[in-house]
């Protein structure tokens, strides 16, 4: 068996040392656990325990620094692209469903079955994209995901365009993201001197803590949630560490409003 180790390739008890340690470090993948202890082999190769760990740390640090920089730049853009793609896929599914219905009412032919296969395939793709979005959101925005869920968070991120821009949005804006259309309509009516209702919530309306409240309480909850989202976005962007108290305060506020 061959084993890819961070300092080279191990085969039949011998090691061929790598000429580029950073590269072999990133390729140190193996399907099976090694039947020997890597450090024991390495200590011999590097000529001592101190030497082994000094090199390992040096390479690990260099690789980590490079990866961190790359990752920080890319992940949020990837989610933005995925959310956009997801919306298109959903539309395509709906469109195909309509068309196949049109065909079926005239004649239930083999083509109808083909259409249905395609729809099934697209549904699977949709699920896959959703899972990917969820996975990345919990990673790059753990607090947002915890308080608002991956779906809402990803949509907010998509509308904002990037984490950097999301972080700069005030809570009042976050509250109505996704309701722009009705917001502009309301403004237009007001300009003409007519009465209009200002929308109280956009995307965040999907949140169960808002949806499950009586209508009269939703505005209050939306304002509270938007404020917490604004805070969570900042923590995620600047520190990336989970703050348990955010969800707790949200739940408390929800219980309060529900009881009142």
């Amino acid at each position, binding site marked *: 068996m061959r*084993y*890819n*180790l*961070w300092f080279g390739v191990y085969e039949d008890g011998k090691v061929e040392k790598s000429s580029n340690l950073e590269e072999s*470090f990133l*390729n*140190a*993948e*193996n*399907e099976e*656990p*090694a039947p020997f*202890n*890597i*450090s*024991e082999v*390495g200590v011999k190769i590097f000529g001592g325990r101190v030497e082994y*760990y*000094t090199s*390992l*740390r040096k390479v*690990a*640090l260099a*690789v*980590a*620094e490079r*990866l*961190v920089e790359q*990752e*920080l730049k890319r*992940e949020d853009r990837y989610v933005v692209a995925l959310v956009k793609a997801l919306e298109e896929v959903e539309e395509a599914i709906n469109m195909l469903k309509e068309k196949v219905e049109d065909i079926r009412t005239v004649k239930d032919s083999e083509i109808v079955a083909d259409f249905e296969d395609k729809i099934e395939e697209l549904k699977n793709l949709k699920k896959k994209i959703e899972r990917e979005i969820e996975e990345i959101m919990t*990673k*790059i925005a*753990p607090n947002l995901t915890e308080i608002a869920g991956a779906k809402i968070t990803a949509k907010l991120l998509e509308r904002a365009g990037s984490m950097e821009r999301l972080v700069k949005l005030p809570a009042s804006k976050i509250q109505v993201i996704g309701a722009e259309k009705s917001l502009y309509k309301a403004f237009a009516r007001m300009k003409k001197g007519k009465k209009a209702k200002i929308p109280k919530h956009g995307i965040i309306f999907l949140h169960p803590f808002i949806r499950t409240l009586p209508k009269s309480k939703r505005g209050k909850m939306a304002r509270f949630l938007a404020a917490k989202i604004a805070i969570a976005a900042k923590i*995620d*962007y*600047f*520190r*990336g*560490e*989970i703050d*348990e108290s955010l*969800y*707790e305060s949200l739940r408390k506020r929800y219980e309060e409003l529900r009881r009142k």
Partner: protein
Amino acid sequence: MKMVVRNVYLSDGMLVTKSRYGSHYGEKVFDGFREWIPWRSKLAAMILKGYTIDFRGEEIILYLGAASGTTLSHLADIIDEGFIYAVEYSAKPFEKLLELARERTNIIPLLFDASKPWKYSGIVEKVDFIYQDIAQKNQVDILERNTEFFLKEGGEILIMVKARSIDSTAEPEEVFDNVLKRIESRFEILKHGNLEPYHKDHLFVHAKLF
């Protein structure tokens, strides 16, 4: 001052670790000690509640979910003659962990996904101890996979379980029972308990591989 675990002391109700280093996350530092804040670290909460672990200081540890290094910084004080492989997959907190890893010669930072141990299987050696704090739905699977790849026979694990991450609708007690049952099938459980009042609905499990 009373020593409760190697390099860990209780001083007037405050937990501290003996350390040559400065503050990492805003904790107080005084004459060679760093305050260890139980609200910030589940391991500190556990020790403060009277559950201890007999670290010898020369262990090789695999730490899954090291985040920005809050707990890791204290563990590095304790394991002053061993090494800690610190795995974290989120780049943001990892930036801060890197600051720590640059000054601590016993930390090996790894930006990897802990659910894919094969990706770092040619880097991490066989370890004496796995510490896991990753708040994920499949965290027990992740623990098992890493155990298979890296844990020595008779090695120990300490896992922090957050009920809401595993199942947000079930009762925490029910979630914990299931987790304990799964761990019991491969490990001998040494101790387990909650982390109230410092961390709500969390369970720690300390166990030893058969």
